[in-house]
C-alpha cells in the first residue's frame, strides 16, 4: 500500500492525540471509567465496543461536546481543554456523525459553509467542494437541498465538510451503518488515502470484518472501560468479538425443522403517499409471508422502511382493503387496533417516543399497545392492576432489568426497554409480527434474547417480518430476504441462496428486479 511506509515513519514522537484516565459520569452511571487512548498521525485506529460500552461518550469528549469529570487530553504531547467543538475544530479534529448533523432544508453548500470558519464566500466554498470531491471521489452538487439526497450522499456531505477544514484527526462514528457494501468499499478507499496523507483516523464500529481490513490499531471498550489495545490484523474476528462482549459470543439457535403454514400476511400492490414532508412513497409493494417463516427486509436507512412499517401496522391506512391481508382477510382499511384484533402485532423502530412513551410507567405502556385486545381495559376504563401484572410477566419472561417495580419506561437502558417492547407483543402470541430494527443500538445479550424470541415465535407458526439495516442480523434469523430501495420492495430470495454482493446491488437500486414484469 502506497501510504504504508509513510505511516510507519510517524510512529516516533508523541502520538497525535492521547487520552489519559478519562472519566465521565452521568448521575450514577459511569460511562467512561479511566479510559486511555492513543492515536498516531497516519493511523486508522479502531474504537471497538458494543452498544452502551461508552464509545460515543468518549468521542463526544474528544470532539468537545462533553466535558470529562477526570482525566487529561494531550494534543501532540501538550495538555489541552476542549470546551466545545470549536476548540476541537481549531486543533484540527473533525467528525463524521452516525446520525448526521445536517440541515434538511438547506442546500449542500450551505450545510458545508455553516461549519467552516467565517470569511470565505460561497463561490470559493463551492470550488473547494468540487476539488475535494474530485481528489477523494466524493462528488456533490452544491445547490441541492439535503432532503433530496440519499443516506450515502448525505454522509459524503459530512465527510467533505470535515475535509474542507483540513483535519489532522478525523473521527468516524459507525460510518458504514448507512451504506451499501459497495458504498462502504468506496469509503474505505477514501479513508486509506486520507491516512496516507498523514491524517489520523478514529474509526468507531462494531463491525469486526471492517476493522481487520482497515485498521492498524484497535482499542476495545466494554462497560466504560478499556479492556484491550491490540493490532487487529493479528487477531481473529472471533477473539475480537469475545473481547468486545466479554464472554463467548452468543449465537442464536436455529429453529427445529418445522412445516410452513399458509400465507398469514400479505401485501398486494401496496402504494402509499408519504405522511411526512420529506418521506418516501411506497410503490407497488408485494409481499407474502407464510406462517412459520421470518422474512427479512434489508435496505439502507431512509428508503421507505418507516413508511413500510406504518403501512403494515395500520398507522397509515391503505386505499384498498385488499392491499394488506392478515390471515386471508382484507385489512388495508383497518386501523392499527383493528389489525391487532386480527392477531397481528407490531414493534416500531424508535423505542422512546414511538413503541413506548418514555415518561409513562411500564404498566401504562402495556396499556398503550394492548388496550384494544382485552385484558387491560374494559368499557373504556383502564384496569391498572391487570396492566401491572402483564408488565411484571413481560419483565420476568424477557429478563427486563429495572430499578423498581414499575418505573417510567424512559429510565430503562436501551436493551431492557427493547426487550420489554418486543416481549409485550410476543407474549400476546400474535399470528403476525412486524418488527422494525429489532436490535438497533442494544447490547449483544439483549439482541440475542430478542432474535431468539423471534425465531421461536416463527417456529410456533407465526409469520414474522423483520425490517433491518443490519445485514448480519438478517442473515442470522431470516428464512427469506427482500430489499427495499426508494419505496420499491424487491422479490424475496431464500437466505441461503443470496449473497451479500447481490443484496448490496439491490440496496443501491442498481439490480432492481421486476418479478411482475413479463
Amino acid at each position, binding site marked *: 500500500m502506497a501510504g504504508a511506509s509513510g505511516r510507519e515513519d510517524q510512529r516516533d514522537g508523541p502520538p497525535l492525540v492521547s487520552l489519559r484516565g478519562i472519566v465521565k459520569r452521568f448521575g450514577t452511571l459511569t460511562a467512561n471509567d479511566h479510559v486511555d487512548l492513543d492515536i498516531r498521525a497516519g493511523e486508522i485506529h479502531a474504537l471497538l465496543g458494543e452498544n452502551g460500552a461508552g464509545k460515543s461518550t468518549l468521542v463526544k469528549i474528544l470532539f468537545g461536546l462533553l466535558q470529562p469529570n477526570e482525566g487529561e487530553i494531550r494534543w501532540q504531547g501538550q495538555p489541552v481543554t476542549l470546551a466545545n467543538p470549536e476548540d476541537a475544530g481549531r486543533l484540527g479534529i473533525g467528525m463524521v456523525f452516525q446520525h448526521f448533523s445536517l440541515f434538511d432544508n438547506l442546500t449542500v453548500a450551505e450545510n458545508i459553509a455553516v461549519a467552516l470558519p467565517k470569511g470565505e464566500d460561497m463561490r470559493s466554498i463551492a470550488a473547494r467542494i468540487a476539488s475535494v470531491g474530485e481528489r477523494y471521489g466524493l462528488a456533490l452538487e452544491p445547490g441541492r437541498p439535503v432532503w433530496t439526497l440519499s443516506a450515502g450522499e448525505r454522509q459524503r456531505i459530512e465527510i467533505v465538510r470535515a475535509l474542507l477544514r483540513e483535519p489532522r484527526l478525523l473521527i468516524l462514528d459507525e460510518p458504514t451503518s448507512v451504506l451499501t457494501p459497495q458504498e462502504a468499499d468506496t469509503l474505505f478507499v477514501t479513508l486509506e488515502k486520507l491516512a496516507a496523507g498523514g491524517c489520523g483516523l478514529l474509526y468507531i464500529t462494531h463491525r469486526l470484518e471492517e476493522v481487520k481490513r482497515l485498521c492498524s490499531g484497535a482499542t476495545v471498550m466494554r462497560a466504560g472501560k478499556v479492556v484491550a489495545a491490540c493490532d487487529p490484523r493479528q487477531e481473529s474476528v472471533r477473539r475480537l468479538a469475545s473481547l468486545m462482549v466479554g464472554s463467548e459470543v452468543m449465537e442464536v439457535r436455529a429453529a427445529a425443522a418445522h412445516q410452513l403454514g399458509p400465507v398469514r400476511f400479505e401485501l398486494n400492490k401496496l402504494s402509499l403517499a408519504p405522511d411526512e414532508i420529506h418521506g418516501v412513497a411506497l410503490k407497488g409493494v408485494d409481499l407474502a409471508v407464510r406462517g412459520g417463516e421470518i422474512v427479512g427486509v434489508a435496505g439502507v436507512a431512509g428508503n421507505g422502511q418507516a413508511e413500510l412499517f406504518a403501512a403494515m401496522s395500520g398507522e397509515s391506512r391503505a386505499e384498498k382493503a385488499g392491499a394488506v391481508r392478515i390471515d386471508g382477510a382484507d385489512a388495508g382499511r383497518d386501523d*392499527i387496533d383493528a389489525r391487532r384484533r386480527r392477531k397481528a402485532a407490531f414493534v416500531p423502530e424508535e423505542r422512546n417516543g*414511538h413503541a*413506548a*412513551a418514555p415518561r409513562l410507567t411500564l404498566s*401504562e405502556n402495556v396499556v*398503550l399497545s394492548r388496550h*384494544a385486545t382485552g385484558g387491560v381495559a374494559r368499557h*373504556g376504563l*383502564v384496569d391498572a392492576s391487570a396492566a401491572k401484572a402483564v408488565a411484571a410477566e413481560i419483565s420476568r419472561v424477557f429478563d427486563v432489568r429495572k430499578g423498581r417495580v414499575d418505573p417510567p419506561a424512559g429510565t430503562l437502558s436501551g436493551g431492557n426497554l427493547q426487550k420489554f417492547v418486543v416481549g409485550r407483543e410476543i407474549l400476546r402470541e400474535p399470528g403476525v409480527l412486524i418488527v422494525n430494527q429489532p436490535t438497533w443500538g442494544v447490547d449483544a445479550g439483549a439482541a440475542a434474547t430478542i432474535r431468539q424470541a423471534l425465531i421461536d415465535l416463527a417456529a410456533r407458526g407465526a409469520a414474522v417480518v423483520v425490517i433491518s439495516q443490519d445485514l448480519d442480523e438478517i442473515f442470522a434469523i431470516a428464512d427469506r430476504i427482500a430489499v427495499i430501495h426508494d419505496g420499491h420492495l424487491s422479490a424475496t430470495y431464500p437466505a441461503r441462496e443470496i449473497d451479500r454482493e447481490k443484496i448490496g446491488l439491490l440496496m443501491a437500486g442498481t439490480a432492481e428486479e421486476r418479478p411482475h414484469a413479463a
Partner: protein
Amino acid sequence: MRLELVPRGDVSPWARVLAPVAAVIAAVLIGGVVIAVMGRSPAAAFQVYFVDTLSESWGLQEMAVKATPLLIIAVGLSFCFRASLWNIGAEGQFIIGALVGSILPLYTAGSGAGFWVIPLALVMGALGGLAYAMIPALLRVTFGVSEILSSLMLVYVADLVLDYLVRGPWRDPKGFNFPQTVNFDATLPFLADGGRLHAGVLLGPVLVLVAWFVISRTLFGFGVRVAGEAPKAARFAGFDANRMVLAAFAISGAAAGLAGVLEVLGQIGQLKPGISSGYGFTAITVAFLGRLHPLGMVFGALVVALTVIGGESAQIALKLPLDLTRTFQGVLLMCVLAADALVSYRVRIVTMARA
C-alpha cells in the same frame, strides 16, 4: 456567563407538589418589590391583598365565587394542555357560552317561567362554548391551522359579538341606553342568606372529581396523556390524533362556556360588556399553577381568586391600579414555569472562564 441544565433523575413527587407553592412565594416577593418601586408600602398591600380577605367570612365566600369560573375553565383547559394543544381562546368560549346561555333567561325574563330555565340555560351555555371551540379545532384538523392564533383571534370576535348584542338587539329598552340587557329572573339561588355564594359554586368540586376520574381512570384520559407525552406513541396506540384534538377542545370549550353562563346567572344577572374581566386568560395561570392536576387546580384557582379580590380591595383601599393584579398573575405564571424547570433540572452557572 451562561446557565447549564442537568436533568435530575427521579424527581420526588413532593418536589413537584411544593414547586407551585414556592412559585407563589416568589411571585409575592416580586410583587412586593414592584409595589415598593411604585412608592407604596408592600406590607400594607400584603395585608389588603391576602390577610384581610382570608380573615373574613365575606372574603372567603367571595373567594369561592371568584375561584369557581377560574377552576371550571382551568379544568377544561387542562385536557387541551395535557394533550399539548394550545387553546388560548377560553376567554372567547366563556363569552359565547355566556351569550348562548343567556338566550332563554333573556326571553323568559318577566314571563314567570319556572325553574326549568336554569338547567337548560347551563346546558346551552356549555354547548355554545363547545361550538365556539370547535372552530379552531376543526381548522386545525382540516387545514392544519395553528390553534394558538385562531383561538386567540376568536376572543376578539366574541367580544365584538357581545358588544353588538348588548348595544343592539338585546339591549334593555328601558335601560337608559346603557349597553346591557334586562335583568334576568332565572338566576342561580344563593346558598346562604345575605351572602354572594351562589349554587354554581357547588359545580366546581363536582367537575374536579369528574375530571380526575376521566384523566386517571379512563382510556380516553390515558389517550390524552399519551398524545401530549409522545404523539407517535399515541398513534401507535391507535388513538386518532384528530379525534383527540376535537375531544379536548370540546371539553375545554364546554367548560369555559359553562363558566360563562354560571357567571352571568350567578353573579351578574344580565349581559353587559366586560362580563369576563379576563377569566379565560387568568385560568391559564390557574391550570399551570395546579400542574394540570384536578386537585392542584383547586389550589391554583383559590390562590388566583385571592389575588383578584385582593386587587379589587387594594384599588379601593390603597388606590393601587387593577393592572397590578394582572401583572402579578403574569409574574406568577412565569414563576410557576420556572419552578417546574428547577424541579426537573439542576441549574449550574458557568462563567465565561471555562468556555
